[in-house]
Each structure stands twice: as C-alpha cells, then as structure tokens.
C-alpha cells in the first residue's frame, strides 16, 4: 500500500516547484519573444540566438568558459578520484578529519571561497587570469568528485577486490579489472558534475578572473547591469539546457551500474 503524506505537504512542494521553476521558464520563454522590450508576447523568433552567435564577445567568453571547464574537469576528476582511493587506506583515526577537509569546499560559501583564493593569489603574486580561475574551479569541483567516487567505493566494499586477489590478481590487476570498472560510473558522473559546476560558476570566478579571462557567467553579469536584453535570455537558456543535460547524463551513468543504490539529483 502507498503511504499518503499530509495534504499540506503536497501544496508545499507544488509551491516550491513554482517558486524555483517559474523564473527559469520565463527566461526561456522570453528568449524566443519577437521584441526587444520584454513584457508582452509578440510571436516566436530565433533572432536572438542568431545574433548571439555573431557576437565576438560572447564567443570569446564561451571559449574561455569551455577551456577552463575542460581543463579543470580533467584535473579535478583525477585528484578527486585519487583522494577517494587513497582515503580508504588511511587508519580510522585519520579518516574523520581528512574526510572533513575534503568535504569543506562543498560547504564553504562561494563568496568566502572566492575571497580567500583572491587573497592567496595576491599574496603569492600570481597574476589573475585563466589559470587562477582553473585553480579555483579545481579546488571546489574536486570535492564533488571525491564525494561521488567515495560513495561508489563505499557501496562496493572490499569483498570484490579480495576475491580478485584470491584468484591471483596483483595489486594493479585488481585495480584495473575490478576496482576501476566498479567506480567508473562514479568517476564519469563526478566529471560531468565538475564540468557543469565550472561552466555555471559565477561567484568564485568573479573574484579570481582577470581582464583576459571573462567567462560566460561573468559576461552575462556585466551585460545585465546595462539592462536585460533578449540575447542574454537566449544565452541563459542555452546554459540551462547544457547544465540539465549534463546533470541528467551524470545521473544516468551513475545509476547504470548494476545492483547499486539509486541516486537522484534532479526532481524528474
């Protein structure tokens, strides 16, 4: 039998959904509205998307964002995975504190993260640019990769690796044929999350970006200060679609593993 919640809970979640999704849907709708002056619906158009493609500044920001996202994703995925793997072998005494340290960037507010990184970079006299943004993105997305891969490792337990060893596999063979295939879904979905976070990040990037490293979100912020244009709506729509696709993909990959608990990141 299905358990029924209190009716107020249903209303509450409906309100929540409206609250979260109405603004996003509005942005998407207006990106197709055939008028510069937002407000009334004046028919469907793709003009704003076309003029977006022709805008040199947008394309430059897009390139910056992509380069930063790709590189920071690769590095963060590697580091996060290695941390998760090596954490397993630490003595229980050290596990708690180390785990806390690795989780920290997930919890710390973005503004603090951005500010502290900015302080660090200026102390070390590192000029702000693409590399500083990458370092910043690696710092926080590594934690997310760590969390996802760690969960996957914990779900796997030790038995499979012991079975492999028992059947004559060396340390590396065990890793190659058993551990890695088992955690690959976690690694891939961690990477997709890292990519999405990097692409969408505004706050941290805003602190540590230089003049030559304007990313898409920073560019959008700069434009919005001069008024919301339909091109910006179009750009945001594209970003939203890419993000949702990546997150859904991450979820799909993570759940494809057999006999594992199901994870859900989005409400659908």
């Amino acid at each position, binding site marked *: 039998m299905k358990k029924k919640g209190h009716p107020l809970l249903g209303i509450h979640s409906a309100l929540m959904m409206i609250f979260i999704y109405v603004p996003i849907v509005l942005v998407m709708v207006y990106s197709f509205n055939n008028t510069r002056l937002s407000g009334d619906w004046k028919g469907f158009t793709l003009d704003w998307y076309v003029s977006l493609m022709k805008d040199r500044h947008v394309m430059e920001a897009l390139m910056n964002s992509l380069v930063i996202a790709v590189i920071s994703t690769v590095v963060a995925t590697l580091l996060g995975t290695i941390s998760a793997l090596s954490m397993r072998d630490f003595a229980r005494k050290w596990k708690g504190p180390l785990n806390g340290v690795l989780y920290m960037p997930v919890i710390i507010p973005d503004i603090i993260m951005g500010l502290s990184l900015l302080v660090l970079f200026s102390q070390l006299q590192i000029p702000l640019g693409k590399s500083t943004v990458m370092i910043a993105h690696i710092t926080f997305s590594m934690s997310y990769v760590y969390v996802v891969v760690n969960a996957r490792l914990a779900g796997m337990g030790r038995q499979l690796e012991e079975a492999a*060893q028992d*059947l004559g*596999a060396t340390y590396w063979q065990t890793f190659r044929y058993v551990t890695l295939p088992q955690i690959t879904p976690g690694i891939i979905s961690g990477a997709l999350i890292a990519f999405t976070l990097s692409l969408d990040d505004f706050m941290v990037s805003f602190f540590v970006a230089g003049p030559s490293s304007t990313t898409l979100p920073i560019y959008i912020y700069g434009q919005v200060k001069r008024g919301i244009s339909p091109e910006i709506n179009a750009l945001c729509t594209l970003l939203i679609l890419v993000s949702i696709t990546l997150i859904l993909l991450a979820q799909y990959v993570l759940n494809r593993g057999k006999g594992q608990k199901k994870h859900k990141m989005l409400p659908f």
Partner: protein
Amino acid sequence: MIELVEIEKQFQGQVVVKPLSMVIEEGEFLTLLGPSGCGKTTILRMIAGFEQPTSGNVVLAGKVVTENPPNERDLNLVFQHYALFPHMTVEENIAFGLKMKKIPKEQQKQRIAEAVAMTQLTTLTSRYPHQLSGGQQQRVAIARAIVNKPKVLLLDEPLGALDLQLRKNLQTELKHLQRTLGITFVYVTHDQEEAMMMSDRIVILNNGQVEQIGTPKEIYSSPRTLFAATFVGENNVFTSPQGLFAVRPEKLRPQRSEESSMKSGVIQDVLYLGNVHKLMVELDQVGEQPAMTVTIVLDSTDEESWQVGERIGVNWNPKDEVVIQP
C-alpha cells in the same frame, strides 16, 4: 598440506581466535564447525592471507606463507557471500583466475568448459550475476574457484543461503568433486549434520577455541568437552561425584518397573518420528542435584506403548558413559 602453528588473532586487543595448531593432510576434507561468531571465517581468512595472524605461522605445502599476500598462495576461497564480479558475465567470472595467471587461451577454454559442466552452469554462461538465483550464484562462485585447480579450496559456508533440497544436492556434488579432483577442502559450516556427512575430520570451535578435533565418528561417540558433546547430535549430560559424563539418547533404556533401575522419572512426552521414537523423561530429584530431563531414542524394534505421565526406570550400560570436561 597446510600447517597452522600457534596462530592467534586479536581485533583491537580482543582475542577472536585463541592460539591454534593443527595439520591438514593432503586430499583431506576438513570442516570447521561452530556457532556464529566463533571465529571460523577469521581462521579461513588467515589461511587465505586476508588477515595477518597476531602471532603464529601459516605453512602451505612446506613453505611459510604468513607474510605472503593472497595472490601468492596456491589456494582459493569461496566467499561466504559469493563476491562475484557484477560487471562480468558468468564465463568472465570463471575465466578471471586463469586470465590473471596468463594461461593460454585454448587451455582456458577447455578448463572453463570442464568447470561449467561440473557445476551445471552450461546454459547460464553469458548471464550476469544479478540475473542468477542464489543457488546459481553459489555454483558460479565454486566454479570460479575450482577452475584454477588449486591444491587447497577454502569454502566459507558455501551452502548457507540455499534451501534444503538444493543444499542436499550440492553437498553430494561437492563431496564428489573433492574426491575426483583430490583437492584438500577446508570447509566452514555451522550445520552439524552437514559436517558429519561430508568431512574426514571435524574441528569443533567455540568462542575462538578448539574444543575437539576428530573424525565424525570420534566426535559423535567420544566427545571430550561439554560443548562438543552437546553441539553435535543430542546428548544427555549427567553429573557424578567424579565429574560430568554423557550418554547418547539411543544408549538409554527405559524399563517398566522402577526397581533396580539406575534412575527413575516420569514420561513428559512421546514423539513419533517415523523410524524412531523419542521419550522425554523428567528424572526424579536426587539429593541436591537439580531436576533434569533426558531424551531416550528407541528404534522401530521397540514394540512397547509408552504413555505420557507414566513412571518408568531408566538404565544404561556403564561402558556407554563418556567422561567429558566442563
């Protein structure tokens, strides 16, 4: 084949396996029998190399292997919870050990075919473990081990999760397998009937301590400790001024008159179990000893009709008394 020299295991200072020495012969079927938590798995894991003994040594085929990792020991373990690789098919699971040892492809094929036939998995080779029933998974785990033709096979309650029918079938199959392949089996179970049926020798464990090592017949007819006497088969334990002794239920004789009998009591229950029947008799209190109930097993040659509530005498032959340690 295997020699355990004073191996002891502690977890966080708590003794889980008390110092244990024994020799396991080549081709022997040895069973570790004991209640849950008595240390059976821990002993197997020390032999396989997954746990380091706190002290003592493991000798395998004349070589001290205490420090060697599991992949350098010529034996295989069938895990209590199967531990099949979920991302590999049945065939890939079985092939794993051969692949790691770089056995030539042709030979791999042949050995896999043999193992698959022996465990009756022929039609299931391309399935994934999650598409198999518990019994089938169990057979894959066994096939994955025997395909390597190890000198020693360690089995941790391999039939624990199966229903009675399948269990009986696999018991005979395993025993047959062990005879034909001549592999040394170290078998863990907490089922005393299974242990009696399959083993050449049984090690009775309790609380990390060996209570007795012996053939099923020795264990049954001359248990040495109270635990061994009562854990394997039914038993009646009596106290005498000299200590404890046990008499098996089938060695007790009921007698209609109480006179000149060794004990007397009242029948509490009569149970008919097909070919045998059982009397539960509450013995009269003698002196300060607490009241006790004994079980008497009578075979079908007994034609008397025993009534509940009847007062009877109980006798036995003193040579059937087995002196046991508390």
